[in-house]
């Protein structure tokens, strides 16, 4: 490995001289402790390095080793159920080997080198394969069959294929490429640079819905499989609980949860609760489909910047196998802040609020890695990668540059509201300013899966909620008494939509997840009551009598009735 020398240290920024030939974003190892860093700027033979670990005790004159390779992740069996830090070091293994605190200079391979995996081949000798073709599979967990793919850029005729128990570094197949005149040994693991999106054959418009089991989202503001959504809100408005709910109940096949600069205890909660929670579709522990990237707020800031990319690359890898993958990034504001911190130390010219001018580009690049796509490979399998990013704007102010730049690229906006959170109306998603641009895309899906009526019900519910806010405004001026009875009925029904339908208790064993079918039935119940009440009102029945109907108790109890009773 080429060696250079430290000439300056300022927090996580280290400058080294003698780096001629080094490339941007190459990984380097600083000092004999081998702290991992990445080159973020080059000037003549000087390299500016962002170091992913605490740099206390490092000084000029110490060596810097240039790896000549960009920051990469290891992809292969063993990723699922793992908990990694921002640069894919396995936290559980670190705990077993190094104790309860994360010390510096730890180098542990991301994947277990010794573990044997049973590889089942699905191709035969003599068969021609192209990049992305499935060579075979490994049963990684009972939920995930880990497909071993021909890495991008390779292809040719299979000259050797094995079957049996192998370690990830063992060769399982050999390809001969006649055009290039080369042979390639394919192993079960491969490396991929995190900042480079993994290729697909073709991107497709989205058409299916990602069911989250959260009523306000699925019914009013749905996200499509392969779509992008953002959830901004001030602290205490329930961003993290929402993200946890998505991670638990989304009907994606693989979930990558990126805890980026967030609280340690929340990660602990995920780690302790996921193994116990069951996937509603399969009944298997949720951990068997989940990968967690945890770079909490007190862990090194540069690794926080990398964590988003580490997570999305792992997600892309599973998408390439043909799975529907969902990524939760909590929170992209912390990632942007890490970007700002490094930019400040590089003495770059700041843009809005001190964020670097390239913030918008970086955000857009990240969200564009989502999408529904035809994967590489001759079988043209389709897969989707959904991104749901939390944003934590200072003071809940939506004019914050991270929010604004995210809104330009994310197609669904779930705006969290302080007022609702204070009244403990959770999820505190404001139904008046949130939106989803996927209604048209998933129309057909809903008509087929639920009922054509579902869409009408949604429109009707949104209309009532909109009308309610206007009526309340009027009531504020002239008093509730002066509203007409039909207006007061609207107020009562919208209150019922809010309290009996939109309000959902994430900690209630039944209420925490609602299937689409049940959502439809619940909403129908409320709106049927409205229809009937409107008729009764026309027949001059008194409003109080109508509102005392026993149907209303049934509506209120509906959310707590088990799925089987629907």
């Amino acid at each position: 490995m080429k060696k250079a020398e430290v000439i300056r240290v300022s927090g996580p920024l280290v400058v080294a001289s003698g780096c001629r030939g080094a490339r941007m974003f190459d990984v380097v190892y600083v000092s004999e402790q081998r702290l991992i860093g990445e080159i973020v700027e080059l000037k003549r033979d000087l390299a500016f390095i962002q170091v992913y670990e605490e740099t206390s005790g490092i000084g000029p004159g110490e060596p810097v080793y240039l790896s000549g390779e960009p920051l990469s992740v290891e992809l292969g069996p063993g990723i699922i159920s793992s908990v990694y830090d921002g640069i894919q070091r396995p936290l559980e293994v670190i705990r077993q080997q190094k104790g309860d605190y994360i010390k510096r200079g730890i180098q542990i391979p991301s994947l277990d080198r010794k573990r044997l995996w049973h590889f089942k081949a699905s191709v035969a000798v003599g068969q021609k394969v192209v990049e992305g073709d499935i060579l075979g599979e490994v049963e990684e967990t009972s939920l995930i069959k880990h497909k071993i793919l021909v890495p991008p850029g390779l292809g040719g005729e299979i000259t050797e294929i094995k079957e049996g128990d192998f370690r990830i570094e063992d060769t399982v197949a050999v390809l001969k490429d006649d055009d290039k005149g080369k042979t390639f040994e394919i192993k079960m693991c491969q490396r991929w640079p995190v900042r480079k999106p993994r290729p697909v054959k073709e991107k497709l418009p989205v058409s299916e819905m990602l069911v989250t089991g959260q009523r306000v989202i699925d019914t009013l503001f749905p996200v499509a499989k392969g779509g992008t959504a953002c959830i901004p809100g001030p602290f205490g408005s329930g961003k993290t609980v929402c993200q946890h709910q998505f991670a638990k109940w989304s009907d994606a096949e693989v979930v990558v949860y990126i805890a980026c600069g967030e609280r340690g205890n929340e990660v602990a909660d995920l780690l302790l609760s996921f193994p116990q929670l069951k996937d509603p579709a399969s009944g298997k522990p949720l951990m068997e489909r989940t990968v967690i990237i945890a770079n909490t707020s007190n862990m090194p800031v540069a690794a926080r910047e990398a964590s988003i990319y580490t997570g999305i690359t792992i997600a892309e890898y599973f998408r390439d196998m043909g799975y529907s993958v969902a990524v939760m990034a909590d929170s992209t504001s912390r990632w942007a802040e890490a970007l700002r911190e490094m930019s400040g130390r590089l003495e770059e010219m700041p843009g809005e609020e001190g964020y670097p001018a390239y913030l918008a580009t970086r955000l857009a690049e990240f969200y564009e890695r989502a999408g529904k796509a035809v994967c590489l490979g001759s079988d043209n399998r389709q897969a989707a990668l959904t991104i749901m990013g939390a944003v934590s704007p200072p003071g809940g102010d939506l004019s914050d540059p991270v929010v604004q730049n995210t809104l330009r690229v994310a197609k669904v906006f779930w705006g969290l509201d302080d007022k609702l959170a204070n009244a403990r109306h959770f999820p505190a998603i404001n139904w008046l300013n949130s939106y989803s641009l996927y209604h048209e895309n998933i129309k057909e899906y809903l008509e087929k899966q639920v009922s054509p009526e579902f869409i009408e019900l949604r429109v009707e519910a949104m209309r009532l909620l909109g009308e309610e806010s206007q009526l309340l405004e009027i009531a504020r001026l002239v008093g509730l008494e002066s509203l007409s009875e039909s207006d007061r009925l609207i107020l009562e029904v919208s209150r019922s939509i809010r309290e009996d339908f939109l309000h959902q208790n994430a900690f209630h064993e039944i209420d925490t997840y609602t299937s689409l079918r049940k959502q439809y039935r619940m909403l129908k119940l409320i709106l049927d009551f409205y229809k009937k009440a409107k008729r009764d009102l026309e027949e001059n029945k008194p409003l109080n009598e109508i509102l005392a109907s026993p149907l209303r108790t049934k509506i209120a109890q509906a959310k707590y009735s088990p799925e089987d009773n629907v």
Partner: protein
Amino acid sequence: MFKEYLTVSQISGPLVIVEKVSDVKYNELVEIQFSSDEIRRGRVLDVSVERALVQVFEGTIGLDVASAKVRFLGRSQQLGVSPEILGRVFDGAGRPRDGAGGIIAQKFLDINGQPINPSSRDYPTDFIQTGISAIDGMNPLVRGQKLPIFSGSGLPHSRLAAQISRQAQVLGQKEKFAVVFAAMGITFEEANFFINDFRNTGAIERAVLFVNLANEPAIERISTPRLALTTAEYLAFELGMHVLVILIDMTFYCESLRQISAAKKEIPGRRGYPGYLYTDLATIYERAGRIKEKPGSITLLPVLTMPEDDKTHPIPDLTGYITEGQIILSRQLHRQGIYPPIDVLPSLSRLKDKGIGRNKTREDHADFLNQLFACYSRGKEVKELTVILGEAALTDLDRLYLKFSESYEREFVSQTEFQERSVKETLNIGWRLLSQIPKEELKRIRPEYLEKYYRV
């Protein structure tokens, strides 16, 4: 022996530039000796081949370019600890302040600590009874949580913090506990209030105090919370104690940080605070918690005064994004003579859900507090409406809610400084108030609990 440099070239604010240095490391501890033989300490903020930028902890008053001798100590700032540390009072930089000699250290710990591996964290689940209804009933505190008090100048946050440290206990257990108290930039009187309170209750024997007063060097404040948390980590994870850490007042800490950042000519973020304020605060707050298979815990109670009572000011804002909830004090309630003036609606405890319920407090607690929140919030809305429309425009139900919210503030939130309510008492008061509201309105409570606890 350490090399002595006489090559100080520039002094500006708390920063000193030393030239022609060799073998200096980042974050190394520095001693500067000057004309009067006085020694001040600092640390290396930026080091390049021949130049080091040093931040002086005690300020640079009286320092001169010509005679300053600089020694680099080859280690970062450390704190000597031993079990004798309990019962002692130190200054903001860790020197004894109580007249007794230095402690004989069993070991020296780096005050910056190391991040706890998220995989090693144990989720906090033990309910702490503080004896204060607005906390126990509505926003319960659990062991290992970091729950700040957002206050304003003139509000009784000191009294509240002292009351919590006096009364906090885990139900049905007698365990080793300790209080670590760090004062940053508060006045002598406030500090004295705490010290006397600890003395009067005998708590001083189980306490360690780090005190940096308003007139003491602002730069020292940067170390004060770190010294306190290093002590707490030692007591909790090596001696197995349950430690409550009180940091008062974080606003002054952040201002010191801003002062240094400005002196370094860094690009400022919001309101002149450095862009890394979030990360810096996180390295303090995140040291709270529990570790699997270790008996102790660190519960953190930072107190901060919001400038102009503004919750969106960067200090409370960033704190709120790191901590697990917040207790907000309200000037309005304080004016009405209600103690503790806890503004229940915007206050929050994120970790409450696993700390309450059957076998912890009572099975109805979760539903109970959700319902109280909803009713109180509705009551407050009605109150606003009354201001505009007058009471005549209210419906009967609205009137009930109005009455509820008033009695809620007077009977539930309000208590005295030395009153310790058990969680059962708190729940009973709440149910008595809830029973003013018609049963069918209480939608957040499961029918079986309504059946059991609702009394007309």
